[in-house]
């Protein structure tokens, strides 16, 4: 038995771990207390990494769907040759746009896959690329595209006086919401240390979450009115003159128009709609504005709710009007170690509005951060059109569960001419696929943290080799994409190099090339067994460049103004109305981990406030029927006194293909497109959905 040091790649936190390896099996995983970032912390799913690799549901060979619907094993390189030929055929018939790719979280935590897949896709030449980003957090991209970005950097958590978390529960999700490293590493101890040095924490969440439990102020609203809450906070700050005039004068346009736009969001109006006591909102707004340092950060609760784009926009406006960014001459925030070290400047990068330029889909969707909104994928497949998607490659994702309107997604996937899933298990999506490619998993491959650096709060880097051998039938994801490219005669260029398509480089070489422009050599990082905390960057925030010095953040462009007006006018919940909210289970990462038998209940209970259960005469563990305007599911009721009355809380990413599956309820049966679907990113409402609840027969 040997102990091996590595880091977890189930989520972006990249926690350091020590694995106990015996006969090529990971017997146990414990947190590495010597890792400077995670300091011993791991989560339940991370500790079950060994089970994820070697558990019964792990796919150890690639599969091809047979005419009778069954799967037969296939060599992954043979599969790549067949898939490449079929893709070439389809593209030959219907053009490059008839091919699509959907990328998931598990691709994101694998640095080589991202770059090789992207290089291959560039050669395919299709715009039809999607990812899970546009079903949970693309509101942040929309804000950046419409407001612009301040390039001096956000204020950090380490020296903040106050922090406001909305719709995020980092003590469970290990993610403070905005990709700035807040409460991402060793979150509980980090929060405790911050509060001991005086940080005031404000949490906005309809549930008394693990994080809310630690808050100085917990605003517990009726879900679905985040835009109104943020508008209410802005209204207090601007009308009481608590904002940072100097920052606003220098960097923002539209502060007065913003003040007018939020003027209707009085504390009384916010209380009437959301149930947050007016006095508590005032207290929270004043505490935040007093600062002087600290930010609002938001999570999926805001980004997946109604009016998500303007809710995010208004949250960012709070940061802007309070000037919670690093000014010229302040130390620059720089976690870059392997990434190129770019200077921070006290300037604004203007709104890009990428979706208004260049290529548009036949459904009017433009390109957002290089991809199309996932919520248009079903239309792309099902609706007639010359560039209809006929072939879809799914990499490290389970869109059948993750996407809204689950029934329609299933119909769409069933109508494809070619569906390929690259997945470590026979997920709901993989079960529908023509080919399932079984990839290697983390701990079976080397990697480094370069692509995660942007979310680290400190200049930290770690490199790891494989700590167990992969099952012989598996293939590295990147190698599969390389093979597709080779078969389709597409050249691959990564890290500034053209690859020899007849002689693929080793993973080690590719990783070495990727890190070639960092400020610390990879060899030095690899020599630090517990990861390396690089010396802090000495750089300061530099003055604005001449080209950028006149740019301003656009706080209230015309389309945003209209959307704010619509959002603030929305009525509150009717008497006794219940609304769906979604939560993350501690043992599960998106759709991954549902098979751990010792985590949770093994199914997806619907949590109710005990008062609602009494009112509706629902018994603990009884079956309830939840119906939205989009669909209906039957779930098991559980009492949860931490909920605000009026909420029904379930976990995202559950449910089998069979609606009666014991695996649990897929909340995406309850979601879909309607008048509340957002512009730009086409996001429907995925949380805060009104529900009808009745006892199931």
């Amino acid at each position, binding site marked *: 038995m040997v102990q091996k040091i590595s880091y977890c790649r189930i989520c972006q936190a990249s926690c350091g771990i020590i694995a106990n390896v015996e006969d090529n099996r990971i017997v146990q995983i414990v947190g590495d207390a010597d890792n400077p970032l995670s300091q011993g912390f791991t989560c339940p799913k991370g500790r079950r990494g060994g089970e994820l690799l070697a558990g019964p549901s792990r796919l150890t060979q690639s599969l091809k769907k047979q005419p009778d619907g069954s799967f037969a094993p296939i060599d992954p390189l043979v599969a790549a040759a067949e898939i490449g030929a079929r893709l070439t055929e389809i593209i030959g018939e219907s053009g490059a746009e008839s091919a699509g790719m959907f990328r998931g979280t598990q691709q994101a935590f694998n640095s080589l896959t991202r770059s090789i897949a992207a290089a291959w896709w560039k050669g395919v030449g299709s715009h039809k690329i999607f990812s899970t980003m546009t079903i949970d957090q693309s509101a942040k991209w929309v804000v950046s595209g419409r407001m612009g970005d301040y390039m001096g950097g956000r204020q950090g958590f380490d020296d903040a006086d106050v922090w406001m978390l909305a719709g995020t529960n980092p003590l469970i999700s290990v993610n403070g919401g905005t990709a700035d490293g807040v409460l991402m590493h060793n979150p509980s101890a980090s929060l405790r240390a911050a509060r001991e040095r005086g940080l005031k924490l404000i949490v906005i969440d309809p549930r008394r979450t693990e994080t809310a439990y630690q808050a100085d102020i917990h605003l517990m609203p009726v879900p679905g009115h985040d835009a109104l809450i943020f508008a209410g906070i802005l209204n207090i700050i601007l009308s009481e003159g608590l904002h940072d005039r100097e920052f606003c004068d220098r960097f923002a346009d539209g502060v007065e128009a913003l003040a007018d736009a939020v003027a209707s969001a009085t504390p009384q109006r916010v209380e009437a709609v959301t149930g947050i006591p007016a006095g508590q909102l005032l207290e929270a707004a004043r505490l935040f504005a007093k600062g002087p340092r600290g930010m609002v950060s938001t999570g999926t609760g805001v980004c997946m709710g109604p009016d998500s784009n303007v809710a995010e926009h208004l949250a960012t406006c709070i940061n802007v009007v309070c000037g919670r960014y690093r000014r010229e001459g302040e130390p620059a925030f720089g976690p870059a170690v392997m990434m190129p070290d770019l200077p921070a400047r006290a300037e604004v990068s203007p709104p890009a509005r990428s979706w208004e330029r260049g290529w548009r889909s036949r459904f009017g969707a433009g390109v957002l951060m290089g991809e199309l909104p996932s919520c248009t994928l079903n239309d792309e497949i099902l609706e007639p059109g010359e560039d209809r998607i006929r072939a879809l490659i799914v990499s490290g994702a389970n869109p059948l569960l993750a996407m809204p309107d689950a029934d329609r997604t299933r119909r769409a996937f069933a109508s494809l001419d070619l569906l390929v899933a690259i997945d470590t298990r026979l997920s709901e999506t993989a079960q529908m696929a023509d080919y399932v490619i079984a990839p290697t998993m983390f701990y079976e491959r080397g990697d480094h943290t370069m692509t995660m650096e942007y979310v680290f709060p400190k200049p930290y880097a770690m490199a790891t080799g494989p700590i167990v051998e992969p099952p012989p039938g598996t293939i590295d994801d990147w190698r599969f994409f390389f093979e597709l490219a080779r078969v389709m005669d597409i050249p691959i260029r990564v890290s500034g190099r053209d690859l020899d398509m007849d002689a693929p480089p080793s993973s080690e070489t590719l990783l070495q090339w990727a890190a070639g422009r960092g400020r610390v050599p990879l060899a030095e990082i690899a020599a630090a067994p517990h990861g390396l905390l690089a010396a802090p960057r000495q750089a300061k925030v530099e003055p604005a460049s001449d080209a950028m010095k006149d740019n301003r953040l656009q706080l209230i462009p015309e389309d945003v103004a209209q959307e704010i007006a619509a959002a603030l006018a929305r009525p509150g919940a009717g008497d006794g109305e219940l609304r769906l909210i979604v939560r993350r289970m*501690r043992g599960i990462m998106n759709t991954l981990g549902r098979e751990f038998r*010792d985590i949770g209940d093994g199914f997806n209970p619907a949590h109710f406030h005990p008062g609602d259960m009494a009112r509706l005469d629902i018994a603990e563990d009884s079956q309830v029927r939840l119906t939205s305007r989009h669909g209906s599911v039957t779930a098991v009721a559980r009492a949860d006194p931490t909920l605000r009355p009026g909420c029904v809380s379930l976990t995202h990413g559950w449910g089998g293909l069979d609606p009666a599956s014991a695996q649990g309820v897929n909340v995406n049966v309850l979601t879909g497109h309607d008048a509340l679907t957002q512009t730009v990113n086409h996001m429907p409402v995925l949380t805060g959905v009104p529900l009808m609840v009745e006892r199931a027969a």
Partner: protein
Amino acid sequence: MTYVITQSCCVDAACVPVCPVDCIHPTTDEGDFAKVEMLYIDPVACVDCGACAEACPVDAIVPDHGLTEEDRCFADFANAYYAETGRAPRRPVLMAGRPERADAPELRVAIVGTGPSACYAALDLLERRDVRAEIIMIERLPAFGGLVRYGVAPDHQRTKRAADAFQRQLARGGVRFLFNMEIGRDISVAELHAHFHAIIYAVGAPGGRNLGIAGEDLPGVLSASRFVGWYNGHPDHAGLAPDLSGRRAVIVGNGNVALDVARILLGSEADLATSDIAAPARAALAGSAIEEVVILGRRGPAQTAGTASELSALARMEDIDIIVDAPPALLDQDASGSFAERLKRSLLADMARRPLRGHRKRLVFRYFRAPLAIEGDGHTERLLLSRTDDADAAPEALDCGLVISSIGYRGAALEGLPYDEARGIYPNEGGRILPGTYATGWIKRGPSGVIGSNRRCAAETVDALIADFGAGRLPAPSGDDAAFAALAGARRSDHFGLDGWERIDRHERANATSPAQVRAKLTSIAELVAVAKG
């Protein structure tokens, strides 16, 4: 946020090695471990990862925001412990988990008993990599769990979950079971030995120690072991029918068993709602006339034998009055004594300060008292007491209808094995009675310690067993599985295996009388066997 260890802590220390920051103390190699009542998580060092909660067999570890009102005191205990001891220096992370090795030699072991000491012995054997242990556990009763089922108080359901954890792990390890088969009655010690390399006796201490005073034979005098067996539905004691018609009951001794008995005697029906107390006991207690329970201690309050955790369970009872009959000076907070002693003294001082509210029921702690004799005309009417701190004081008479002696348990002799009459144990060295014959748990070391104490006790015994096996001192058994099965079948037809026990378990859970209740226990051998046989 931190995790907090609560009342059901079994001190088996499974949580300690999985903590990445070494914030659970004392560890097994720290000085006070042997004496400690429970383990504590350092709230300042905890990183809230929850690894300890997953490792805990009795679900004793919960996040602080999930603490119930009555469990809040355990967060205070932890704070007090670390305020006093400071933090121990970090040690390298230990790793558990030892997968079996297929090519190791086979070792056939029978374990007599299915209580915690038996289970820990089996689990320890399963983890050994130098042998491939084939284990059968033989239980005289038609039910699994020993004192977890029949000793742990019925309102301590979290502690009782230890049995579920044991059963799950043993089943996964391929351990087989033989229920309703008594060694010494159905199968002799010699016969058993002919079929296995080694036998581990984990038969516990079923009897209570005698008070050794006049009147002990009067009706109304009971040993705690029988009383506890009665309310837990032990088939041997289910028909006990103790006399609860008097106003006062006296418990001699103030260890955890005494505190359990007092809590059960004074509790309301609501207190027992979620418990699995045996139905006859539930009914009898509902009609009990007892209004006062006196707990007698031979020494002073600081020497109360029960743990702080059990004292706090009594202190949380809202609808009784509590009197702590001890001079205030003895309850004063000063720095003398161990952490546990001071914690108990402070809990007792809190109880002593609690105003009397005129509740119908009350609990009285008395100290420096020893029983002299029990008197009465055909049944218990009064207990005579002497003072242990004043030899010249006149005896005191305490009217009472029930005396429960809770001064310790005692092992019983088994034909074919040596027995130390004075200590009530099988004489052994580190668990070895003879090569091939071993003991663990209370029959090995005497009746002390909590569930988790048996883990290290069993490890020592298994060490001795493996050493004997390695040295060739354990000859291959003459009978194999088939021969043993034939022997068992010939002696009794109403024995059964794990499947039978699982049927009982399901049946009892399904027949719970309310949603809150875990199970409705079957209390007679005949009923248990009938359900097991399907």
